């Protein structure tokens, strides 16, 4: 194997890469998946409480609510506009604050506060906003709350929000698509277009070709995984552990990609292989989404050995020493899969020219 030839092959692939739909998809995938995740699991399933206020004076309640984080506040110009907001479910709850309301509260007149709420809004959001408004009113009257509420995240897996629970799944998706697709697709493309045969009658060897595809796939996968983690706010304070996990995962996925690429003679066979076998690779994810399932079953899957460390690091803050054993197993699996590529590459070469 020659570094110069490998680099020449990679530079050719890079030049072609930006003209390939697969590579383009790989490059935009972290952004698309993160966007979808944010829309589906944050905006739809875990949306922020939304309040709309028509304030005919300059109430302290409005100003106090504007300072609260975690709610979305909008203002209506009049009562009719506020009602329209609510009817269109653009806010969970509407609040009409008449001019002089604050003074009336401070004078102890117990003025009436009118709420409007949308039938389509979440009950939990209505409660959150109602309680917030009551807190603000108490502050106005200088009444201390009888208790102090402290929010803590539980240690149990069930208490981790679904959007965060899905982060390892998204990274696995990136690992599978980039780590497996890139080397596999590039190998198959060379075979389909006959260019591999053209390469093999130059000083380029099969090992050069396989290594160049794997190296390109490896680099792209590691970069894409880190971009995905960054986009999802999951770059923990354990960079070494995270890097080791992504590297181990990438080695396994690249080796699988090379196996697929050497086995498949054309794109159709490659897609069949991916469709039939990738479900097995993504299997461990089920055990994190449905925590009641017995975890030992997940250990059967080769991907478990880097998905579990990823889960522990990104969601539970585990450090390298806690995950190194599992990562070592993942690396061993990756190396064994790489060894399996050797006879497959010989078979590929034979089939290519026969």
């Amino acid at each position: 194997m020659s570094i110069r030839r490998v680099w020449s092959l990679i530079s050719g692939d890079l030049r072609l890469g930006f003209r390939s739909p697969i590579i383009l998809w790989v490059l935009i995938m972290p952004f698309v998946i993160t966007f979808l995740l944010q829309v589906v699991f944050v905006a739809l399933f875990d949306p922020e409480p939304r309040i709309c206020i028509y304030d005919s004076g300059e109430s302290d309640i409005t100003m106090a609510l504007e300072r609260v984080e975690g709610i979305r506040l909008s203002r209506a110009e009049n009562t009719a506009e506020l009602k329209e907001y609510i009817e269109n479910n653009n806010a969970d709850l509407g609040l009409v604050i008449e001019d002089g309301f604050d003074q009336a509260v401070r004078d102890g007149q117990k003025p009436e506060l009118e709420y409007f709420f949308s039938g389509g809004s979440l009950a939990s959001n209505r409660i959150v906003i109602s309680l917030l408004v009551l807190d603000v009113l108490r502050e106005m009257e200088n009444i201390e709350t009888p208790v102090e509420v402290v929010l803590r995240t539980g240690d149990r897996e069930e208490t981790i929000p679904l959007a965060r629970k899905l982060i390892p799944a998204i990274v696995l998706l990136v690992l599978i698509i980039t780590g497996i697709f890139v080397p596999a697709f590039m190998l198959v493309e060379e075979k389909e277009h006959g260019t591999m045969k053209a390469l093999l009658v130059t000083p380029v060897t099969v090992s050069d070709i396989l290594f160049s595809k794997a190296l390109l796939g490896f680099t792209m996968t590691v970069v894409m995984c880190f971009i995905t983690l960054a986009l999802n706010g999951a770059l923990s304070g354990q960079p070494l552990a995270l890097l080791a996990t992504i590297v181990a995962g990438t080695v396994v996925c690249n080796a699988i990609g090379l196996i697929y690429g050497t086995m498949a003679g054309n794109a159709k066979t490659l897609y069949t292989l991916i469709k039939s076998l990738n479900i097995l690779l993504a299997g461990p994810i089920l055990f994190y989404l449905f925590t009641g399932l017995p975890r030992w079953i997940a250990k059967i899957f080769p991907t478990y050995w880097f998905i579990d460390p990823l889960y522990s690091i990104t969601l539970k803050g585990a450090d390298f020493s806690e995950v190194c054993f599992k990562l070592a197993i993942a690396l061993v699996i990756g190396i064994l899969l790489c060894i399996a590529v050797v006879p497959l590459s010989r078979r590929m070469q034979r089939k290519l020219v026969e």
Partner: protein
Amino acid sequence: MNPSLLATNLSYSYGNLEAVRGISFHLNPGEILGFLGPNGAGKSTTIKMITGLLTPDTGSIHLLGMEMSLDNPEVQARIGVCFEEKNLYLNMTGRENLKFFSRLFGLKNFDADDLLKKVDLANRADDRVSKYSKGMRQRLMMARAIINRPDVLFLDEPTNGLDPVSSRTLRNMIREQAERGAAVLLTTHDMWEADELSDRVAFLNEGKLYVVDTPDNLKMKYGKRSVKVRLGSDSHVREETIELAAADAGDRIKELINSDNVMTIHTEEATLEDIFIEITGRGLDV
């Protein structure tokens, strides 16, 4: 002179099918050897073995004094191969294709434009190959094959299905390569092309090598060696064939010429195709 290529007792089977059966031949520097045979004769399999794509079941191949084996970069750096199938990078331009391959050969200061000019593609250098015609692709394949100024050049049906202009361009390039000292192995089933280009021809059929010799020697050996004379007057035209081996052949030809009735005289030289059929018992157009 040491041969550029020495193939000894090569055999290869695809399962039960014997594609090449114990063939031996050599190729000298600056020589063009035409490999002639119908489809399925074993020409491409032989080239695949010689270029290291296939490992022969038996026999040995010495290229440029080195034993050829799978993944032998040292030998492969000194050969050029032009396949029958157009295996170019379609999403690269013509120039990018050549530059990419020049890097694989480790060529420094490679001038792609000069080579593109030689194959009449200079004005399409920046077009993607997917937009090239069949002839243009074949010319680019030829340019790619000679990118490293190979010592041995393998050409598998290089002009197959090309227009006359593209064919002529490629034939001229093949001659140029031989003139500069490259040994050229050319497979074709175009008899005229083989006759025109080859210093020697080899007849291959059903995996067996029947004969290797110069076209002239083969014609001498297997041709009819006769002269056909067409004689005519105003109302009557007749033909007479004179066997040159006959004792009175010279006198008879003289006599006919002196008769003032001669319309045309043709030598009855055998074509390579006639000789191929005579030797192998099979035509080339299959």
